């Protein structure tokens, strides 16, 4: 048995101060002193005892732990003779550990200061690289509202002195990203629509339910970073959104698309179509009647949008034109094929006094365009009100005031014709601007006047009111001429200029005599022999298909001489203005004629022009283009079929192109099944697009479930739904043109 090394009695176990900073340097050699180093590490070696005087002698007081009293004893002067040799004190383990802590802290603090002191401070704390789309952003301030690099700025931003920091930070995102007028509101919508009820279980995943318990009211506004987590690396998908983030806000929650997702009550038919097209009747009847012109497949009329998401309707010429182009030209119309523009209103000439010359056979109502042009006269409003319920062709029961108003109307109409004749289209523009209350753009002016030919107006004036200028001068001078019924001349024979049948009334002979006092003789002079100089040559008198208005069956029973009359309506088959008796008509130049379209749009805003919107009007616009009124009652014509721009985002989106390869023999019918019994046409009785019956049966969720299972095509909310709803366009950079850019 070896001698034990460690003794635990007080004599063999001296205390070596391991809890102090310094310990004796000779601890390892076994002869360390009892005094030990001081707190600053200075050796305390010296005399091993303090001798005490014992009578006349000095006595050693060295303790038993250090060998007890020495043999030699103190010196004669009382000084200890045993001096402990000095040592180089060592740091204790505890002190070394403390130094290690201090050194590490100092080094760490130094690194932090070094890291944050330079311009590289941002990269020192950047939690991760930006996504590739943001890779050109090279400073923190571009996105973070935190300003400055000082510690105080960071602390202020971090803890409460910047309460709007989350929102302010998001504004940096919105500098480049347009997400509508309420970007931080749920779904970027100021007002949220209500969702349909869930089917089956209304419980979401337990995590979502628990989240709602912990956070019953999701915080709003919803900062961009809530879903779009940046600093996740260049390849991170900033738009990836887990289902739970969608579900946490929705009161109607459900487990997944497979379990609990609401059935598609009306998807994708959430409103009536803009173009009135009855698939059931066309496929069931019309296409069968016209197999040569009928499309052979859905793609005959539909085409994928450029972004592949939606299906669009082909243009008129590619789809409907084969059968319906003639409808617009009015080929099938029994009546006039042109839209009525300026027209002489019919008046009861026996009772309307002092209106001068007035076409005897004019019997039409005020056309919408005529009324709009008259509304440009500020005095017309009172006339219109007075004549609101009056039949102008029968004034027997009219009051004197109403008869007077009819007289005023006649002079206002004459003034209108005179203004148009003298100023041309400018007069039309001025009248329309006065009636509409706002200036028209150059394009509107062009489209609304249809570039009305001046010669045609001259012709109309000469036919309707041969002495218009003189009459107006007299009227303005207070000398109103008596009412005089006028019979315009018949169409000038095309083959025989001398045919008297073109002028059927003696009174007109007098009017157009060179010797006439009325001064119209020069109008018919043909000094040059050029027909163009003759106002009555060529196509001055249109309306060939309405018969001869000047024939008097009682006076002349003998057959009319056969003359070749000019059919102005047919001459304008490709579109343009023509004169039809007492009406200037415009014949549409095919589909999407700008004049008819613009006047149709104008008619939606002017009650006076409401008749223009009738489906059987020439042009037949509203036979196919539905009329819709919004919540404020504003009506618009739906010129275009549904088209979703790439910038427009809806709650639910379906990418057609990615599904084409999945369709079987049923093709489009896999999802779109025509409902032959649906009263589709009834949907267009009103102007509310939300009141409708679809041509197709509603899509059922089971169709999607064939593929959209968790282990197949996936059931993520974001597969079909968008969070940001609205029309978001890329924000253009505000590039200021400078000299350097211009000359580069």
């Amino acid at each position: 048995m070896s001698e034990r090394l460690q003794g635990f009695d007080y004599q063999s176990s001296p205390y070596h101060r391991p809890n102090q900073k310094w310990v004796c340097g000779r601890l390892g050699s076994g002869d360390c002193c009892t005094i030990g180093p001081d707190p600053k590490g200075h050796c305390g070696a010296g005399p091993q005892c303090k001798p005490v005087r014992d009578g006349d002698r000095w006595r050693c007081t060295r303790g038993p732990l250090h060998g007890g009293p020495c043999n030699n004893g103190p010196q004669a002067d009382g000084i200890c003779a045993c001096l402990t040799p000095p040592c180089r004190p060592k740091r204790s383990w505890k002190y070394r550990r403390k130094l290690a802590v201090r050194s590490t802290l100092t080094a760490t603090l130094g690194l932090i200061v070094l890291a944050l002191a330079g311009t590289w401070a941002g990269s020192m704390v950047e939690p991760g690289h930006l996504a590739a789309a943001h890779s050109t952003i090279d400073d923190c301030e571009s996105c973070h509202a935190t300003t400055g690099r000082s510690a105080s700025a960071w602390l202020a931003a971090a803890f409460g002195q910047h309460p709007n920091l989350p929102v302010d930070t998001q504004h940096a995102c919105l500098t480049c990203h347009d997400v509508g007028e309420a970007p931080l509101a749920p779904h970027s919508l100021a007002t949220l629509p209500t969702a349909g009820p869930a089917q089956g279980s209304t419980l979401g995943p337990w995590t979502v339910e628990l989240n709602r318990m912990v956070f019953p009211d999701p915080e709003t506004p919803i900062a961009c970073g809530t879903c779009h987590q940046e600093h996740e690396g260049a390849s991170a998908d900033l738009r990836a959104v887990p289902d739970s983030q969608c579900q946490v806000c929705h009161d109607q929650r459900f487990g997944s698309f497979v379990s609990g997702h609401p059935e598609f009550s009306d998807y994708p038919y959430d409103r009536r179509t803009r173009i009135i097209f009855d698939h059931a009747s066309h496929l069931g009847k019309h296409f069968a009647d016209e197999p040569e012109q009928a499309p052979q497949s859905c793609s005959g009329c539909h085409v994928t949008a450029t972004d592949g998401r939606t299906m669009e309707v082909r243009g008129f010429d590619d789809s409907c034109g084969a059968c319906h182009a003639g409808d617009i030209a009015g080929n099938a119309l029994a009546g006039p094929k042109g839209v009525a523009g300026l027209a002489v209103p019919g008046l009861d000439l026996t009772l309307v006094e002092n209106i001068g010359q007035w076409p005897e056979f004019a019997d039409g109502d005020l056309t919408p365009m005529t009324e709009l042009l008259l509304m440009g006269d500020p005095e017309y409003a009172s006339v219109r009100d007075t004549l609101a319920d009056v039949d102008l062709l029968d004034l027997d029961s009219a009051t004197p005031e109403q008869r007077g108003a009819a007289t005023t109307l006649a002079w206002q109409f004459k003034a209108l014709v005179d203004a148009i004749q003298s100023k041309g289209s400018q007069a039309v523009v001025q009248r329309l601007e006065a009636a509409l209350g706002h200036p028209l753009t150059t394009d509107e002016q062009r489209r609304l006047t249809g570039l009305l030919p001046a010669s045609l107006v001259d012709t109309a004036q000469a036919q309707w009111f041969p002495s218009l200028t003189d009459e107006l001068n007299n009227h303005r001078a207070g000398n109103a001429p008596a009412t005089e019924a006028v019979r315009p001349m018949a169409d000038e024979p095309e083959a025989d200029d001398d045919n008297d049948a073109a002028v059927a009334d003696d009174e007109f002979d007098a009017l157009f005599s060179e010797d006439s006092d009325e001064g119209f003789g020069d109008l018919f002079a043909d000094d040059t022999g050029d027909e163009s100089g003759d106002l009555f040559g060529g196509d001055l008198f249109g309306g060939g298909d309405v018969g001869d208005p000047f024939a008097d069956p009682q006076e002349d029973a003998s057959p009319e001489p056969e003359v070749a009359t000019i059919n102005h309506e047919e001459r304008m088959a490709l579109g343009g203005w023509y004169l039809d008796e007492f009406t200037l008509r415009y014949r549409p130049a095919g589909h999407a004629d700008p004049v008819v379209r613009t006047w149709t749009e104008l008619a939606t805003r002017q009650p006076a022009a409401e008749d223009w919107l009738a489906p059987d009007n020439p042009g037949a616009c509203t036979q196919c283009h539905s009329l819709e009124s919004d919540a404020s009652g504003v009506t618009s014509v739906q010129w275009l079929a549904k088209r979703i721009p790439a910038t427009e985002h809806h709650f639910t989106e379906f990418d057609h192109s990615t599904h084409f390869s999945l369709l079987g023999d049923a093709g489009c019918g896999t999802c779109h099944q025509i409902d032959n019994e649906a009263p589709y046409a009834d949907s267009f009785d009103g102007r509310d697009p939300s009141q409708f019956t679809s041509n197709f049966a509603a899509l059922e969720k089971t169709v999607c479930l064939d593929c959209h299972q968790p282990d197949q095509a996936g059931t993520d909310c974001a597969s079909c739904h968008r969070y940001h709803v609205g029309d978001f366009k890329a924000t253009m950079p505000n590039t200021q043109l400078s000299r350097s850019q211009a000359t580069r």
Partner: protein
Amino acid sequence: MMRFAKRRQANLTTWAIVVLIAGVLFAAVSAGLTRASFWTGWLLMAAVVLLSLYSQRKRLSMLPIGRAAVWLQLHAYTGAFAIVVFVAHTGLSLPDAPLEWLLWLSFVGTAGSGLAGLYWSRTLPPRLANADEELIFERIPLFAARLRQRAEQLVVDAAAQTDSPLLGEHYRTHLAELFMAPQWRWRHLGPTHYVTRQHDRLIALERYLADDEKPFARELAGLCRQKSDLDMHFTVQGLLKAWLFVHVPLTAAMLLLAVLHLVAAHAFGGA
């Protein structure tokens, strides 16, 4: 023994329940619009602060704030909990920025050294208890010096009494280095009780010695064995102290970096 086992079982059960609750809350927070990283970050910060209080507790022994053993248990289980929260906070992804790397490394270093320290403090003390005698770590150099004096005195006595230089030469050649100072030997941390090979050499040498030399050789072999045990104490106790040289400084650095991280996260995170 049963009491210790029951206590450990109770502690582990409590820890597991806390982790489970935290995991459920983490899943719930992650499922919502709230950024879970802020919650886990604050939780981690609180755990780290609580862990660092353990060293302060040892300095405030006069205060009635619980026994040190209880604090040690709390420290160990909280540390394990902090590791779980750290995993949830980082998502096992590596940082990018230099300072974030420093924080990540300091936490991993602290946690790793803590786990190692926990393991060593549970496995090594029995080895010390099974040794022939208990030794105070700070005195090991002193004991080493005593052993060297005894060995050298023994060799001198052997040479004087037997007139044989064999033991003296053997000591000079093979044993002098062994007795020179306490020696750190990793083998003492191994699974088996290690005795220095010099002891075996002396046993093997005995057959070549004269009869009067053999008692000296046996006594010298005993000193070798005693020195081997002394080195075991030096290694084991040294390791039990040395891991704190990693754990404690890294904790301090981690706290500093964590505060910076917290400020930066709130200043730039928009929360």
